[in-house]
């Protein structure tokens, strides 16, 4: 792999730029997108760098065509990504469902911004957490990573590509304007220390009539275009050969279940969390940029002699319910912190409430990450 793809070294770098560097390191070849604050720097960076390695960034007419082009390029055998923010995701949702339905590897970066509709583009809010899981119609599972620093914008982008390729699925990076625009030290490792994965494809020359390219919970090899597989790829209900079936409900049942099982069966190896709650009675559960405030508050509380721990969800989807239960069994009180009005909170509460008290602490002002002082106050309140 060339130096143009992996710029090994230590940098003072913006989160969004680190994301672009991560995509290059992961082997990304094709990116399509539409300009939007606060994600634009990723596109700008890739528009310059991708052509240098024979790839390209393409500015489409809207976000609908951006995700469509990305899916098309993925079926052409390319490693692909699109970058946007909430309004763009809202437009992409139908085709995100398409990517799930025909099992297309792709990375979708959502640098989240404030509020519904146009909102406040430069302010980070974790406002699209449940949209990523449930935004497109029908039952499905998704993978979503939540970086909390520029370094993780790099690291998580590499992981996202590897998950997308390994499980043949769209993978979200749910960043936000704070993490995307944050500047910090970013270390880009040497090429041989960066693990990259490329999808399994069928053996060349396989008889197309015998090729099972879909609906395997262990991930079917992808019959990418241009290799003579004569792949029939339809978003209509289909069987493992790709053959459309619009009359048999048992085919529909299999179609819906297999797509979800493919993710759920591998949930343990997909799930990434950071546990620091040994001996803690109060556990702060958070993800993304908010986790930094949670860690600061927990450290101060411990200095004061209050046994406080933290659990950070790195992958929010598939929802790591087992991790929540494991933590809640040991805790007396769980405090959930999100920079929103409580989106993942109901999911956490559903798993934890049987074992411990669970409460939610919203930011004082929506769009402002919780002040560690306020978190400390809440800790003192519940520890009484």
């Amino acid at each position, binding site marked *: *792999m*060339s130096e*143009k*793809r992996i710029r090994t070294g230590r940098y003072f770098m913006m989160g969004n730029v680190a994301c672009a560097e991560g995509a*290059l*390191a*992961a*082997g*990304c*070849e*094709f990116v*399509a997108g539409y300009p939007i604050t606060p994600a634009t720097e990723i596109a700008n960076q890739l528009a*310059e760098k991708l*052509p*240098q*390695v*024979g*790839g*390209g960034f*393409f500015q*489409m*007419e*809207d976000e*609908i*065509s951006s995700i*469509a*082009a*990305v*899916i*098309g*390029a*993925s*079926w*052409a*055998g*390319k*490693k*692909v990504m699109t970058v946007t923010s909430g309004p763009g995701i809202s437009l992409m949702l*139908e*085709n995100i469902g*398409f990517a799930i339905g025909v099992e297309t590897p792709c990375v979708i970066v959502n640098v989240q911004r404030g509020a519904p509709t146009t909102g406040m583009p430069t302010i980070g809010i974790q406002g699209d957490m449940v949209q990523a899981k449930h935004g497109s119609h029908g039952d499905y599972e998704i993978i979503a990573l939540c970086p909390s620093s520029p370094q993780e914008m790099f690291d998580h982008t590499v992981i996202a590509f590897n998950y997308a390729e390994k499980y043949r699925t769209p993978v979200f990076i749910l960043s936000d304007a704070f993490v995307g625009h944050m500047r910090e030290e970013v270390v880009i490792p040497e090429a041989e220390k960066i693990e*990259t994965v*490329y999808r399994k494809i069928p053996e060349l020359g396989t008889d197309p*009539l015998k090729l099972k390219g879909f609906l395997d919970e262990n991930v079917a090899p992808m019959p990418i*275009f*241009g290799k*003579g*597989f*004569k*792949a*029939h*790829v*339809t*978003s*209509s209900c289909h069987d493992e*050969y790709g*053959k*459309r079936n619009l009359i048999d409900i048992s085919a529909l049942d299999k179609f819906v279940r297999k797509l979800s099982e493919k993710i759920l069966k591998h949930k343990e190896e997909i799930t990434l969390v950071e546990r620091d709650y040994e001996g803690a009675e109060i556990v702060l559960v958070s993800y993304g940029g908010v986790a930094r405030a949670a860690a600061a508050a927990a450290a101060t509380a411990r200095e004061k002699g209050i046994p406080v721990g933290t659990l950070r969800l790195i992958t929010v989807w598939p929802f790591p319910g087992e991790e929540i239960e494991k933590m809640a069994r040991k805790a007396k009180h769980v405090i959930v912190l999100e920079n929103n009005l409580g989106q993942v909170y109901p999911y956490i509460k559903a798993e934890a409430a049987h074992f411990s008290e669970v409460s939610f602490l919203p930011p004082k002002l929506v769009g402002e990450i919780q002040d560690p002082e306020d978190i400390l106050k809440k800790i003192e309140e519940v520890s009484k």
Partner: protein
Amino acid sequence: MSELVHPYHRFIRPTVTHSSFCPGCGDGTIAQSILRAIDGLSMDMDDFVFVSGIGCAAWIPSPLFNADVLHTTHGRPIAFAFGIKMGLPNKKVMVVSGDGDLVAIGGNHLIQNARRNIEMVVICSNNGIYGMTGGQAAPTTPMGVKTTTTPYGTFENFFEDISGLVVAAGASFVARWTTAHPRQLTASIKKAIQKKGFAFIEVISQCPIQFGRKMGVGNAVQMLEDYKNRSISIQEAKKLSKEELKGRIVVGELVDLDKPEMVEEVTRMRKKAMGGAEAAVDTGRG
């Protein structure tokens, strides 16, 4: 006795046992014209990737054609095809879909990619109605026609010339034929496949079930007769006034231009990005 096999049966996906088209549908003529063109150019189905959207015409390549086929969401096939062409620049990418898919919900992708002049063939089966969902008005349904969503007659102006729209947007090849012109249509598809640029072919096609029967314009044969009677070549049409052309279908090749094509421009841009060096593709996969 040897079995009689249709000469183009070899282009049909072996698992296909029947077509989903209604009796008398024009999509069969379009399907066969495409296959005749491919055969006429001595090309193989593996030279192509077919893309379609939602609607009856989208079911021409999916599942009929024994090739790589992507059957996509409503209105978006050209946008998917963009990514496929960029990923596989040496393959021929052909979009086959209907007027509702390409011109109503997907209109922006049609004109933007005509503007880009990206090399692909787009075949639009224009039946002037939403057939699959049961005969609703389309932007191509003539004014005043009663449909299931316009029981008092359509009250919107309609697209009389979608080929003209694509010409204005910048495509390098545009032709319009009807299903009563299968030979001319096949010849234009051949040209479109060989064209370095965005090649759009509009095919006025009969929907005898949802349009002909309900609108009282008759069955498939009567609709084809009507197309024949109303068609006028582009050369002849130039001699007539706008008034004289009312109700006529202008057929032929509207444009056939040489102009910058996007895939070639991207190759040029990459070379510039690499400081003039020949494009050395680094996929990152060793």
